[in-house]
């Protein structure tokens, strides 16, 4: 069964203050896929995520979502098309409660979905968020914030989630939980996931396919089979 392409970039260039970081990124992701992006520090993975969601304007090339070019669209409009972005470093709203943080995510996907049901589902995935729903998010521990950041985008029922290093700072069993939750969600709702990751276990637990980035370009693609082999992945990360 070949699904249609949900997200595609063509010759994407982007950078900061004239210094190019992405230098012609081409990738394409089909609806319902879980795709990882890996690469060493500083090769431009986060930069790619930011240009996909629109926080960083691209200099050249284009981003297509559901066949439509997003390039001229502001980030909030892209989000309303159904793209949820979980940034590296989490960036929760520090002086708002956990519950309020979650409510902000509702804007994703445009429509005002049933908040109570969504909240219940998210509290089901991440019980600590329920326990701490009135605590100010800035005082949560690092791992708790990561869970909140993921829960926040789920509130809007996105069709595509961009995750930037979701395992960072998370205790091992919750890393496994997050991987499992994402895979479950993917199976149940068909949600598409593109994630940047360094944690081999998480990559192997989640990804169906994997792009390798170096110096602002996609340099390789690893298929399902090669992913099974720890050392192959490790070798790619070491380039």
């Amino acid at each position: 069964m070949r699904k249609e392409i949900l997200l595609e970039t063509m010759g994407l260039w982007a950078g900061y203050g004239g210094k190019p970081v992405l230098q012609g990124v081409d990738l394409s992701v089909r609806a319902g896929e879980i795709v990882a992006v890996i690469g060493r520090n500083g090769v431009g993975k986060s930069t790619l995520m930011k240009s996909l969601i629109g926080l960083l304007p691209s200099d050249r090339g284009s981003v297509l979502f559901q066949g439509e070019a997003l390039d001229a669209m502001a980030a909030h409009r892209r989000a309303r098309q159904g793209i949820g972005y979980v940034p590296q470093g989490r960036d929760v709203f520090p002086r708002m409660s956990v519950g309020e943080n979650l409510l902000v995510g509702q804007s994703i996907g445009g429509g005002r979905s049933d908040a109570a049901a969504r909240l219940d589902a998210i509290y089901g995935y991440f019980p600590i968020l329920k326990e701490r729903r009135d605590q100010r998010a800035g005082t949560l521990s690092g791992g708790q914030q990561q869970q909140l950041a993921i829960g926040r985008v789920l509130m809007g029922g996105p069709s595509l989630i961009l995750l930037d290093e979701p395992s960072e700072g998370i205790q091992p069993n919750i890393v496994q939980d997050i991987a499992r939750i994402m895979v479950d969600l993917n199976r149940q709702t068909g949600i598409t996931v593109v994630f940047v990751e360094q944690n081999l276990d998480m990559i192997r637990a989640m990804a169906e396919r994997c792009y390798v980035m170096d110096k602002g370009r996609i340099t390789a693609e690893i298929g399902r089979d090669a992913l099974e082999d720890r050392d192959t992945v490790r070798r790619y990360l070491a380039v």
Partner: protein
Amino acid sequence: MAILRTEKLDKWFGGLHVTDEVDFTVETGEVHCLIGPNGAGKSTFFKLVLGEHAPSGGAILYDGENITRAKPFERIRRGISVKFQVPGIFQALKVRQNLQIALQHHLQGATLNEEIDRLLEFLKLKDAQDQLAGSLSHGQKQWLEIGMAIALKPKLLLLDEPTAGMTPDETFATGEMVQALNAQGVSVLAVEHDMAFVRQIAQKVTVLHFGKVFAQGTIDEIVADERVAAIYLGEVHA
């Protein structure tokens, strides 16, 4: 002889008991890892040791001296240094200047510059030395912050998730660096969730849970402990 010892160290945030009468020791010269679930109180424990937070009760002894009431900078001057969980660098200053500010405590003039160059090389930030620190990638920021921490030539180095966001090879390199420092006599206390890293460096591991010491031992003992697996590790491959 313990380089760091806490006695019944206690911290409440409002109604939340985050550090619960912790008795904890880092022996001089050891590499000690502190692990535990998110929210267990590891970062808070660091902040108490550094004086960022005032404890609700208990005492902190460094090298035999009671430093419970000392100001943060006084603790640093006695030989503690830290890499925080959230990178704390001088965003609008150049990478080079960041290191200079850390190093100028004990170095001057030409030797200062040589040492900065040596550190830049070591941190693989040579090419980025004139970049503003704020424009580094996440991993590069981590390296820079580690560099600033070791630039202080500490006797006790506190590392809060030093390898978060690093590739396995980089993590391994960081582990080697920690071991090299330890070989020079630096005691290390590290918080990590990466069990491979913990296995690589730890001579002793303490598990913190709900602000209490939950388990302690070698990495093998900890990995074998089913209670730890239940609250923290899950099915590990470490």
